[in-house]
Structure formats: C-alpha cells, structure tokens
C-alpha cells in the first residue's frame, strides 16, 4: 500500500515528475526496497476518467501554465504561449503519448564521430553506446509490452495504415509495418488489448496503451515503498554548505509551501520544466543555477525535426478510426548524407480528429484553399515525420526576465530555430511522404508544419566531460553527487526515434546505479 513519508524524513529519494522517466524510476527503486516520494505537479486522474474529445481532453490533462517562445520556428508565431504539448498529471505525458517505442540505432550514440563537425550544431557523442543500453532496452520493452518484441504480435493495420502501406510498397520501401507499439495487441500484464477507439492522444480509456499512471506507479505503490504526492508543484531544490542537495520546496494542493527532505533528488519534469527548476534553484553558492558549471543547463533544446503529410483521396479512408500511430516506414532512418543532410527520419501514421485537424493543418490558414481540404476530411490519410534534429546552443529554455508564475517563479521562455540540416531533412521527408500518397492516387496533399513540441529533449545533456554537459553517463549531475536527471532532458542528441523507450531504458539503468551507490554509501 502507498506509504506516506514524513516531510522531515531525510532518507527518501525524491523524484520530481511521474511521467516516463520519473514514474519508471520510482517503481524500479521501490522494487529494490528503496523509499521513494514522487512529487507530481498535476492531479491524479485515473484512466476511466479520460475523455474521448480532443479539446476537452487537452483541458483535462495538458500543462497550461503560461510559457513564452522565441526564435525562428513557426510555433512562435502560431502558438506563442504553447511551445510544447506536455501533460500535467500523474503519469505525465505517457497519458497522451501514442506508444511508438523504438530503439536508437548504434551510430546515433556517436553523432560527432559519425557525422563529423556540422557548422552551427553542438554535436557531441553520448558517453554510452547501444551495447550499454541494450539490456535495458530489453527490460523496457518487456515492461511496456512493446509489439514485435518478446513474441508480442503486431497490432492489426487500420485504414490509415493500409493507405500508408500501399504507398510504401509502391515506392519500394522495405521496412513498413504496424510499428513497435507499447499498446497491447492482446491481454497482457493485467491490461486488455487495444479496442481501436482512436483516441490514443487523449489517454487510453481501456488501459491498453502503456502509461506509468496505471502500470509503474500502482506496482511501485504495492511494495509499500512508494508515495506519489499529486498536485505538488516543485519550486526549488535546496542544498547545504557542502553543495549536496538536501530538500525540495513545493506548493501543495492548497498552494501552501512545503519542504520535503531528501537523501537524493531526481529531476524528471520533462525538458522544459527540468532545466527551469535547476535554473530557478540558483543560490549564492550556485549563482547560475544548480549543476550548471558547464553553462549547458537549458541549452541544446531539441524537439525532433517533425512535420506531417496529409493527403486527400477520391474515396473514404476514415483515418481517425483505430490506433493513432500504429504504422511506420523505417527505410529513411539511416544516416546517408547523399540525401543532403546528416541523420535520418521515420515516417509514422497519424490521424487527428476534426477539431485538431482544423487547428493544426495549416495554423493561421483560411479561405477555400484551407476549407476545401477539411471538406474531404473523411477521405484523408496522414503521416508524421520524426527525424533527428541538430542540437544548437542558442536553442534553449531560459528564464523569462519579467513574467512569473502564480508562485512567483520566473516562467520558461523557449527558444528554437531550425538548423539548415533540419530544414533539408524535413523537405526531403515531405517529398517522400507526398510521393507515397501520390502513388496510391491522392488528388491533393499537404505538407503540414510542425505542431507544438511533443518530444522535448536535450536541455540537461549527458556528457563524458563535465565541461560539455550537465550529467554523466548515469544521469547523475557532474556537479552534485546526489542530484540526478531522469527524463529526456539527458539526451546528448535526439536520434531519429520517438524518445520514450530510451527514457524508460535510461531510468531502469539509473535505478540500478542509484541503488548500488546507496548500498556503497557513496551517496
């Protein structure tokens, strides 16, 4: 049963955030008998309360606290206060995610070595290799029930996939299937199989899709070693004179400030809030923010090179029916500079409901060119591009100079501008995607610009040397031994793959390390 811990209990590991990184780490540590408190800013909303309605669900789960944007990306113009689509609830963004679960490719851990110096990019090799992560990928896939691993069958293809597959075949693509999805294709691990309801982005009301909310968290709670404290928004991490972190200050559900003591603190608030919290925790000892001797906290913000291609056919597709993203072409994921860019990309099926399609097909667009596209909504097919983007120092999460949140803490200001490599990759992907649909008879297709970021990465990056990044190969900050980063902000570079499987694998690996170090009394 959930164990309530005392605010003055300084033996606990405090984890900030209960999403892919934090929720997994919490359960892994609890399974090892370690006492854990997860502080989660959002409420606890169980899966039967999810809503099959795009805007209502967004209102129920999304992080809506004010944020600002800057830089050359179109999101800055179209959604100036919504740089990212992230969830504020127990389970974090694993409530809204689509479930695509891919391993990084070997070369993607060594981009500086394999791509060479790219002008304007802050490329760096990860301090770990694919071989280091493979055993943890295997554990993560088993834990999450990823299809096409562990003898789990693939999901059946829906209408959107069938159009996509026909196009892929026509273009001669070899690796096209219904994906490696953390969605049950049949009952598994006490959860039922996918019912093809088509609201994966709104939270799976059947629990068929993996989310820490109803897997890791209740499993951890059953050990009696994990307490999840919802509606607890962390404002600041505090340290002692020696520089060790000692406690975490948070606003509780009534807005009252509380302080939870801790032996170890793990930050897992996703790549905007995690660096913001480290920066907001500046002190006289650490005037530039915690763990920021490298100056890299908040820098190298990555969001994947994304975009979508939608196409209209002369007959119905009904692409919103069934799994939102169960379909992939992997042929373009390789590193092949002859295409005019380094790194690669994946193409994945995607469908939006009518309300979101209206908002995202061509934000700001109007008139007949726009509305005649929606007139054929039932004859549309769609796909999403997800490719490796270049880390750049000036792409960053900064503290806003004036604006503060309701607790008086500076809000995050998210800056992003595409690197020329990102633009070249996106244009290549648009062309390939449109060619796929043309090949099956599309009468019109649309290269749709990137949405607010769903993959937020890199703002506390992992590095061999303390001068190049924020955390070491275990996600432990270079500067402070008992302070860890446990989410996607650790990524040194982004790879072409959707990030969550890697976040989960890193969290499992980090739990092993933390428990060893605790037993050795070195932290």
């Amino acid at each position, binding site marked *: 049963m959930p164990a309530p811990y005392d605010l003055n209990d300084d033996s606990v590991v405090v984890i900030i955030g209960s999403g892919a990184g934090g929720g997994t780490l919490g359960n892994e540590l609890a399974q090892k008998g370690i006492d854990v408190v997860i502080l989660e800013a959002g409420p606890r909303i169980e899966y039967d309360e999810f809503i*099959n*309605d795009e*805007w209502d669900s967004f209102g129920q789960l999304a992080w809506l606290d004010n944020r600002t944007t800057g830089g050359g990306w179109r999101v800055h113009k179209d959604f100036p206060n919504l740089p990212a689509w992230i969830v504020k609830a127990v389970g974090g963004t694993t409530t809204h995610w689509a479930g695509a679960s891919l391993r990084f490719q070997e070369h993607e851990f060594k981009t500086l070595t394999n791509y060479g110096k790219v002008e304007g990019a802050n490329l760096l090799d990860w301090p770990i290799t694919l071989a280091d992560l493979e055993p943890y990928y295997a554990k993560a896939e088993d834990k999450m029930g990823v299809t096409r691993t562990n003898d789990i069958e693939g999901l*059946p*293809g*829906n*209408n959107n996939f*069938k*159009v996509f597959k*026909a196009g892929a075949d026509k273009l001669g693509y070899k690796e096209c299937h219904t994906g490696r999805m953390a969605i049950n294709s049949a009952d598994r691990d006490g959860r039922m199989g*996918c*019912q*093809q*309801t*088509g*609201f994966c982005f709104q939270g799976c*009301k*059947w629990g068929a899709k993996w989310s820490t909310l109803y897997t890791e968290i209740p499993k951890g709670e059953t050990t009696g070693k994990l307490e999840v404290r919802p509606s607890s928004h962390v404002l600041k991490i505090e340290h002692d004179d020696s520089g060790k972190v000692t406690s975490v200050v948070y606003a509780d559900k009534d807005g009252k400030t509380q302080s939870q003591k801790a032996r170890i603190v793990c930050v897992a608030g996703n790549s905007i809030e995690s660096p913001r919290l480290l920066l907001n925790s500046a002190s006289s000892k650490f005037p530039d923010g915690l763990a920021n001797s490298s100056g890299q906290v908040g820098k190298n913000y990555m969001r994947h090179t994304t975009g979508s291609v939608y196409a209209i056919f002369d*007959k*119905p*597709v*009904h692409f*919103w*029916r*069934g799994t939102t993203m169960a379909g992939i072409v992997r042929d373009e994921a390789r590193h092949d500079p002859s295409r005019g860019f380094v790194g690669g990309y994946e193409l994945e099926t995607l469908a939006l*409901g*009518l*309300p979101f*399609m*209206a*908002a995202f097909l061509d934000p*700001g667009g*109007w*008139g*007949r060119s*726009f*509305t005649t596209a*929606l*007139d054929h*909504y*039932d004859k549309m097919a769609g796909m999403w591009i997800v490719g490796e983007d270049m880390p750049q120092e000036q792409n960053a999460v900064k503290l806003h100079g004036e604006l503060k949140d309701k607790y008086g803490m500076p809000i995050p200001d998210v800056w992003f501008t595409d690197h020329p490599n990102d633009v070249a990759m996106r244009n290549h992907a648009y062309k390939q995607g449109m060619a796929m649909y043309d090949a*099956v008879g599309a009468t019109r297709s649309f290269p749709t610009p990137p949405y607010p970021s769903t993959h937020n990465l890199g703002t506390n990056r992992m590095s061999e040397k303390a001068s190049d990044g924020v955390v070491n190969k275990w996600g432990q900050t270079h500067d402070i031994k008992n302070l860890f980063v446990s989410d996607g902000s650790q990524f040194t570079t982004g790879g072409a793959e959707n990030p969550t499987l890697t976040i989960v694998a890193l969290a499992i690996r980090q739990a092993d390390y933390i428990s060893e170090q605790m037993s050795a009394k070195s932290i």
Partner: protein
Amino acid sequence: MVTIYQGRSGLSRRELLKRGSAAGALLIISGSAVLSTGEAWGLESTALKPETLATLIQMARDIYPHDQVPDKFYAIAIKSHDEQAGKDAAHKELIEKGIADLDQKSGAGGYTGLGWEDERVAILRQIEETPFFQAIRGGLVVGLYNQKEVWPIFGYEGESYSKGGYIARGFDDIEWL
C-alpha cells in the same frame, strides 16, 4: 449561453420569409436580433449591434467557407464575441470598429453588399494581419470546428469508447485499395 432558437415567437415563418425577400438578404435584422429566413432561427444580440452580428456571420463564412454548413453554425461560432463584448468594453470596441472599417473599405453597400465571395475576401486580405481579424479567425478555429453538431457534416464520428471503439466497427474496412 447561446440564444439560437428555432421559429422565433411573435414572428411567423411566413412573415420572416416576406421580410427576408423584401430586404433581399438571407439574414435580416429585427430589433436586436439577427434572423435567418431560410433556416428559421434567430440570434439575439446583447452587446454588439445586430447589424454587426450579421456582418460577422458573413465574415465567418468567408474566412472558413463550407457550402454544406448552414449559417446557424457560423452564428453559434461568433456568438461568443457578443458575450465577451458585454463583459469587456475594449473587446466591444475592437469588434465594432473592425466591422465599421470593413464596411468602409467595402464601399457604399458595406461588406455584406459585396455580392461575390472573392470581392469580400479581397477586403479581408487587406486586414488579415489586424488584431480584429485575428480575433475573429482565431475564435472560429474552436468556435466552428468544435461544435459536435458540425462533425457529422464532415463525416467525423467523435467519441467512440461508449460504442466499444472501432474494433468491430470498421477500423480496417477500406476496400478501394
């Protein structure tokens, strides 16, 4: 919240039609209301001029023209500006001034006096960067497309959990490939 009602009392459908044809317009103004002769509904204005509401409805259709979507849904979509204008004087001024400017740019007969969509769109293109236009367009994205009654017109089926998803209802029923 939205006072859209069918068959407004005190004004018979025949009377509506008569007035409508007399005015030569689909939407007519009666007191503080905008009345639709063809679709037989009325929209009561509370803060904005009824003429302003009628022009907004036309403007909404010109921004997001769907010939298969009746005026009623555009009326519902812009109604929130009337409500907001009632609470916020600055918003009222934004809308009234915006519409006055639109009419002025459109010549003697005003915006709704321009017969072709192309002519009206040419005027809208002149103002598309203004806060007024952006407020109207931005509001429509949710105001129009998030009406559940509009979804079937586009074929969108909405909520599916209560029907057991699409596993037995055609998630893979495509036949023409």
